[in-house]
């Protein structure tokens, strides 16, 4: 499991969050080089494209391609923005927080390179309200970088100017959806917008906008400094680079680990996270955050990348694994998730507003031993009425996917609940203290 690491390479130093700590480890070199050489912006985007970097926020969309959707500045002179999605809130996911708290300048350098590549006028970093330390560290980093002439007007004496602003959210999962995020940033309820128009044409305040995840942007300075080929050599064929894997639930050593894309999930579970806790057997696992569904132990050797997980009927999502041991109940965990989606549905689309509520009710009924055999088909019918592509955003899909996965992969447990009037194997587990990662 020895492999090159870079994402977490700087955080061992106690001052990794300061400008001094960042520069001592080669920070801002990639941006300064672009600036001093006057690298044509299109070439920067081309390198990012060539690297094969895919968005780390959930959808896995190629970052360079997304950047290239921003209109040509010569033909469209409107103000152009980037919103960095730091509203990390997909259950199971706690990776961007590590980067923002421990290495905020790395994110800022990525923002500056993106600003150069897309001729942006301003960058907004939308941090979820609960992440107080992330906000503070980034805010302090912006002040330091501004004082050092790296942010603001005429950066390093050139005619390139860029402002980076902090923005604090106030809860609400849906604000992690890119158009919900933009509405929220404009001071409104976080209601996703219908697409098209896409953000690159009509984003923040109607101006061209690109919305990128923290970890995606964080990768950019490394790619520019070390080259697209270096990046492509890591990871798997269609998913380049390393990613931050949060692994949580019933494992010995939960944590955030830097892993090459394409690493088998079983390797991450056993070699990084110390295996299923207490020597228990694996009951189920979720590969990429709560919306990616429950998988069976038989597919735990699946490589953690976009294509391989698609093949087993799931998604890479945020790459955050959640592990359930033999004592766990998939029906119970599914109910926890459905309560969550019901709570977080913004209510614009009937399919999602009503559907998430119904799913939660039916799962509750089965969970409480009041389920009927036809409830299994009912879950399926409700999910089919919600997704795919039936609503403004993908929250309905995010509830439908885990539901389908339970029906497909753990039908035996649903049947058992209905027949036995509940789940007898579930024991109340006591929480144990564990190491802080």
């Amino acid at each position, binding site marked *: 499991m020895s492999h090159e690491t870079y994402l977490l390479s700087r955080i061992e130093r106690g001052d990794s969050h300061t400008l001094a700590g960042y520069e001592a480890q080669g920070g801002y070199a990639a941006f300064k080089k672009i600036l001093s050489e006057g690298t044509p912006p299109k070439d920067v985007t081309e390198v990012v494209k060539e690297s094969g970097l895919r968005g780390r926020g959930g959808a896995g969309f190629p970052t360079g391609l997304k950047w290239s959707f921003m209109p040509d500045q010569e033909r469209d002179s409107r*103000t152009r923005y980037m919103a960095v999605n730091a509203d990390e*809130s*997909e*259950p*199971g*996911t*706690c990776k*961007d*927080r590590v980067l923002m708290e421990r290495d905020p300048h790395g994110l800022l350098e990525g923002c500056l390179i993106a600003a150069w590549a897309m001729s942006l006028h301003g960058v907004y970093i939308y941090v*979820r*309200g*609960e*992440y*107080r330390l992330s906000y503070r560290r980034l805010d302090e980093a912006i002040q330091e970088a501004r004082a050092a002439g790296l942010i603001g007007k005429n950066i390093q004496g050139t005619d390139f100017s860029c*402002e980076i*602003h902090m*923005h*604090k*959210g*106030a*809860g*609400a*999962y849906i604000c992690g959806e890119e158009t919900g995020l933009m509405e929220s*940033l*404009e*001071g*409104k*309820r*976080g209601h996703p917008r219908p697409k098209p128009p896409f953000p690159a044409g009509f984003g923040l*305040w109607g101006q061209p906008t690109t919305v990128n995840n923290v970890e995606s942007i964080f990768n950019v300075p490394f790619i520019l400094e070390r080259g697209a080929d270096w990046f492509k050599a890591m990871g798997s064929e269609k998913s380049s680079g390393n990613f931050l894997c*949060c*692994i*949580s*639930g*019933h494992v010995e050593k*939960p*944590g*955030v680990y830097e892993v090459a894309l394409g690493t088998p999930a079983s390797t991450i579970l056993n070699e990084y996270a110390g295996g299923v806790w207490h020597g228990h057997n694996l009951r189920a696992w979720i590969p990429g955050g*709560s919306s990616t569904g429950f998988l069976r132990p038989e597919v735990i050797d699946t490589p953690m990348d976009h294509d391989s997980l698609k093949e087993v009927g799931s998604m890479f999502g945020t790459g*955050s694994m*959640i*592990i*359930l041991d033999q004592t*766990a109940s998939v029906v*119970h*965990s599914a109910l*926890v*998730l459905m309560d*969550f989606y019901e*709570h977080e549905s*913004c209510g614009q689309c009937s399919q999602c507003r009503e559907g998430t509520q119904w799913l939660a009710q039916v799962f509750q009924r089965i969970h409480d031993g009041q389920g009927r055999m036809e409830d299994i088909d009912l879950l399926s019918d409700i999910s089919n009425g919600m997704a795919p592509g039936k609503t403004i955003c993908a929250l309905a899909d995010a509830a439908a996917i885990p539901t389908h996965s339970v029906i497909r992969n753990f039908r035996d447990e649903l049947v058992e609940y209905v027949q036995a009037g509940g789940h007898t194997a579930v024991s*109340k587990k*006591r*929480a*144990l*203290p*564990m*190491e*802080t*990662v």
Partner: protein
Amino acid sequence: MVLTDALKAEFTELASHYPERRAALIPALHRCQEELGGWLSPEIIEAMAEWFEMEPVEVFSVASFYPMFFLRPVGKHIVSVCRNISCDLRGSQELLDRVCQVTGAKAGANSEDGRFYVEHVECQGSCANAPMMVVDGIYHGDLCPEKAEQILGGLDR
């Protein structure tokens, strides 16, 4: 007028970061909640509507969308216990039970003495340190009911 001059000066600074003043609304509501008694009273909503040149109902509509804003008075200490999947798998229910028992507050309500407000919340992004809770904005991870009790016991009256 409930808004202090200092707060209004802060709002002006916040608004300077955006092409439209309204974008500062949510950060400004945070500041109100922090400085003006821990919740957004109807008086604060009205005052904010005036400052932002919006209708009070529009400000209320925004405030009511976001779980971090309180529209009713809350206890002196806010205890938020995560109940989502990673925390649930490692005992968040036992944690919440103990928190309720120690504080005398039910989830989603204040304790009778007004000292605590307890709530269960969705994923706080601390899954590798599950189960976790947030007390007055500070994250506490790798908890067990005993450890949670200790943390609550150390809070000022």
